[in-house]
């Protein structure tokens, strides 16, 4: 027995002293050495870290079957069973790269992103408010990016040869029907929503995802903010009005609510700035919104946003058909919008994203023919002048419900599918000079189903394949729209992408009811992009071709309205776009340059043949420059927009031949506009400031350059009048204050 014990002891001491060397090399699957990989013998301290040649070496006293694990950031962990028998061991292992967001190619053909988080983002949310030509308007900042036209006489985004109605705007997945304030003749209105509501924006100039439809040209996708960082109140005072709001974060930081109210009155601006129009009712806007946001247990979110606004405007313009008479246009608008969304992880890699929205819009529009003393001219017999006295009342209701299910697959791959339902009910009453009323109601139920897959083959190659089915009651047909994007990343981190897609859209309400049964209008996009993004520089170039088919053509009905009658319109748009942004070359300076070349022709509405549409031009460029001067706590911003002249036409109707023809045409002068703004932030650097102030001074069209957007013709075609911006320059001075609410009071109250 003693002997056995001795043996055990000897063996034991032997095993304690005999060490085995393990060596090897760690590479990736392409045999490239990986430095810094950790090699570890499980449940022991033994192991090593690879050197720059991927080699490692270590000694171990462990025996028998063991597990060796190799880990390094960005690669799948490898585990190998080994048997340690006292002889040196060589173990070479190739690791598979993980597909991660940090490294993977970004599918970016056709889209610009503004966000803080995503690496593909071209702008960040602050850019939207500090771009001087944008005037704090959500969509206007995008007019400094390639792909958009500088259309100054009406609102909306005119993208790559498309009309404004071909661009749709979504908030948290829900369509926003009246995103802009109601149109006024010759004056572009602003977007309704405050840009600070959003944390991220994707502006797609084509080839967008199957999750969105009913937009031939473009989708602007806005994502609202999550919980605020802290409870905060803010106040804004400016030459155009005042407003205030509060965002309250709950104590457990899991929910928040907020309300705000804004009052805009352009009276002060109108007393100092000369306007082309004679405003007898200066624009007055009341606007309120409310929200709540709740973080759920599993990291999901419930978000509600509600909005209401009431506004009115009235102005006189000289009547184009006479030298003495005037047109007095007035509009009153009441708009509400509400949406609620729920995002949740439901286990097994599944996510649900569902939402409903409801909105209403009411416009009361009137136009009066007035004489030199602003007295209404009553004309009782049917004539050109008589038709200038009218009243138009519009009432609309919209609702949407949607759900999207998403399943995460391996790496970044995912599939998602879902459904959308849209309801719209638009009623209008048109009252003629003699009290005759025409009423109409256009109702639609639109159903859509979609599916989409993100396929990441490697970190360098990814594709998005999707499809969308739609059925609209108005058209009463199904359509099927395939979508495809592919992106490839080069070794220098630049990337190339391609996108293809078919897009369908219903006729806009003003063309309805249709004279004959219609099909959907259709656009097919092909986009090729190359881009290189580093943290301080962005370069991208994009070429596109867009084919339009089945565009709506109009015919005149018996009361002289142009309504959709045929589906045989067509067209194309092709172009080349550049974008360069640089925050590196000049210290504290951030600038970007964009240029778009566009060649487009279309035959639609009342166009006699395929012509270059009046909202498009060949060359558009923008330059934006921002410089923060730290010692002065001031940021200086400058933007310059340029566009070549746009074509304009007088399209007349030949009542005998029942045909449209172009009786006059021309091209406007080039468009030039320079805007400038200064932001002064006096509280920067103060320790725990209770208030934070931003002073803003902005001047639009600093140089007072003459801008002609298009021409209006008199009824007989003998006179034409330039449509220009309502004022030469516009000056904005304002102060925005935010107050972080001090929590000491809360603490005291809780302890009592």
């Amino acid at each position: 027995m003693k002997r056995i014990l001795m043996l055990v002891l000897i063996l034991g001491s032997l095993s304690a002293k005999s060490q085995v060397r393990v060596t090897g090399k760690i590479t990736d699957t392409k045999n490239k050495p990986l430095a810094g990989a950790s090699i570890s013998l499980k449940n022991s301290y033994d192991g090593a870290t690879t050197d720059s040649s991927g080699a490692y070496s270590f000694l171990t006293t462990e025996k028998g079957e063991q597990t060796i694990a190799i880990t390094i950031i960005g690669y799948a962990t490898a585990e190998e069973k080994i048997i340690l028998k006292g002889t040196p061991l060589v173990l070479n292992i190739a690791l598979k790269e993980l597909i991660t967001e940090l490294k993977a190619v970004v599918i970016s053909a056709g889209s610009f992103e503004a966000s803080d988080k995503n690496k593909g983002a071209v702008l960040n949310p602050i850019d939207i408010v500090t771009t001087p030509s944008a005037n704090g308007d959500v969509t206007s900042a995008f007019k400094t990016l390639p792909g958009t036209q500088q259309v100054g006489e009406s609102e909306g985004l005119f993208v790559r040869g498309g009309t404004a109605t071909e661009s749709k705007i979504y908030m948290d997945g829900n369509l926003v029907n009246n995103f802009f304030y109601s149109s006024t003749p010759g004056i572009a209105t602003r977007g309704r929503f405050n840009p600070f509501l959003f944390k991220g924006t994707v502006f797609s100039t084509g080839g967008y995802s199957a999750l969105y439809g009913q937009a031939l040209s473009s989708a602007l996708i806005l994502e609202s903010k999550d919980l605020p960082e802290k409870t905060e109140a803010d106040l804004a005072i400016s030459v155009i009005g005042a407003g205030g709001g509060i965002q309250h974060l709950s104590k457990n930081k899991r929910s928040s609510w907020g309300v705000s109210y804004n009052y805009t009155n352009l009276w002060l601006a109108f007393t100092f700035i000369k306007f082309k129009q004679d405003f007898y009712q200066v624009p007055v806007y009341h606007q309120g919104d409310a929200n709540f946001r709740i973080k759920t247990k599993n990291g999901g979110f419930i978000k509600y946003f509600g909005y209401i606004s009431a506004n009115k405007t009235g102005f006189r313009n000289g009547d184009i058909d006479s030298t003495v008479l005037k047109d007095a246009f007035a509009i009153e608008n009441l708009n509400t919008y509400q949406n609620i969304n729920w995002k949740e992880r439901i286990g097994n890699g599944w996510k649900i994203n569902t939402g409903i929205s409801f909105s209403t819009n009411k416009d009361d529009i009137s136009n009066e023919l007035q004489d030199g003393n602003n007295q209404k001219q009553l004309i009782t017999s049917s004539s050109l002048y008589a038709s200038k006295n009218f009243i138009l009342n519009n009432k609309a209701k919209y609702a949407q419900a949607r759900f999207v299910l998403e399943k995460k697959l391996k790496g970044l791959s995912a599939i998602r599918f879902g459904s959308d339902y849209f309801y719209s009910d638009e009623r209008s009453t048109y009252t003629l000079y003699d009290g005759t009323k025409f009423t109409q109601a256009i109702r639609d139920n639109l159903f859509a189903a979609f599916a989409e897959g993100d396929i990441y083959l490697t970190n360098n190659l990814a594709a998005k394949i999707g499809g969308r089915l739609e059925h609209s009651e108005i058209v009463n047909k199904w359509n099927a729209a395939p979508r495809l994007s592919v992106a490839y990343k080069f070794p220098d981190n630049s990337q190339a992408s391609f996108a293809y897609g078919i897009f369908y859209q219903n006729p806009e309400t003003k063309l309805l009811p249709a004279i004959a049964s219609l099909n959907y209008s259709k656009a097919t996009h092909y986009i090729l992009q190359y881009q290189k993004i580093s943290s301080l520089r962005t370069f991208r170039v994009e070429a596109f071709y867009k084919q339009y088919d089945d565009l709506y053509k109009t015919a005149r009905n018996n009361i002289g309205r142009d309504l959709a009658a045929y589906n045989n319109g067509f067209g194309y748009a092709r172009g080349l776009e550049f974008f360069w942004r640089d925050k590196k070359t000049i210290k504290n300076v951030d600038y970007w340059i964009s240029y778009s070349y566009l060649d487009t022709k279309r035959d639609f509405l009342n166009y006699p043949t395929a012509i270059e549409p009046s909202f498009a031009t060949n060359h558009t460029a923008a330059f934006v420059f921002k410089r923060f001067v730290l010692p002065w706590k001031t940021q200086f911003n400058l933007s310059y927009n340029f566009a070549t002249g746009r074509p304009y036409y007088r399209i007349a109707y030949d009542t005998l031949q029942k045909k449209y023809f172009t009786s006059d045409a021309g091209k406007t002068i080039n468009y030039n506009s320079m805007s400038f703004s200064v932001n002064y932030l006096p509280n920067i650097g103060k320790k725990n400031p209770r208030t934070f102030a931003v002073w803003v001074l902005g001047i639009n069209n600093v140089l007072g350059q003459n801008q002609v957007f298009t021409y209006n013709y008199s009824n007989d075609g003998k006179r034409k009048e330039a449509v220009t911006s309502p004022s030469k320059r516009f000056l904005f001075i304002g102060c925005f204050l935010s107050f972080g609410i001090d929590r000491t009071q809360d603490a005291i109250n809780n302890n009592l």
Partner: protein
Amino acid sequence: MKKLFLVTLLTATSIVSFSQSDKYIAAMKSNIAAIDSSFRNPANLLGLANNFERIANAEKNQWLAYYYAAYCQVNYGFMEQDKTKTDGIADKATVLIAKADSLAPKNSEISCIKSMIASCHMMVNPMQRYMQYGQESTTNMEDAMEQDPTNPRPYLLKGQNLKYTPEQFGGGCKTATPELQTALNKFATFKAASDLHPVWGKQRVEQLMNECKQ
């Protein structure tokens, strides 16, 4: 006989387990001793991070091993020149410190590392990330001060952050020096709970104060 055998076996096992603990202390000590010199070479710092992680994974319930693994990892993150890699390294440090945190909750030293990790994320793009990570860094630093008022390291972090913040944003030596002085005073009286508990930072404070004097 059987009894004897069992006793021997038990004794042997107890010796083994006792020596294991010795082994732990010895391994930790030698690795901790290597930290300071490895700041000159980021690759060595990563090697140490991996060493600590192996010890931590083998021991499973020693928060200090995870703590040092995270500490080396986040410092490696600060030294990484390729900013596209920084977030991955900081995320790795987060995984490690979360394990330490579950073993020793509400620990002032652990809160310091959390603050450093947030600062590391912020460094990738300070202008854009200040709102999120600046706040996170501050919150953790304040937690660390509250969890152990005698700990000098959160004051070092605060002073260091302030020193590298532009004067116009409320930073610079003027505001940093009082914080660094507080840290220095606390270093004079700070007693680590054991040989393995963190003591780092005094040299760094002195270095920063010297830079401010010049």
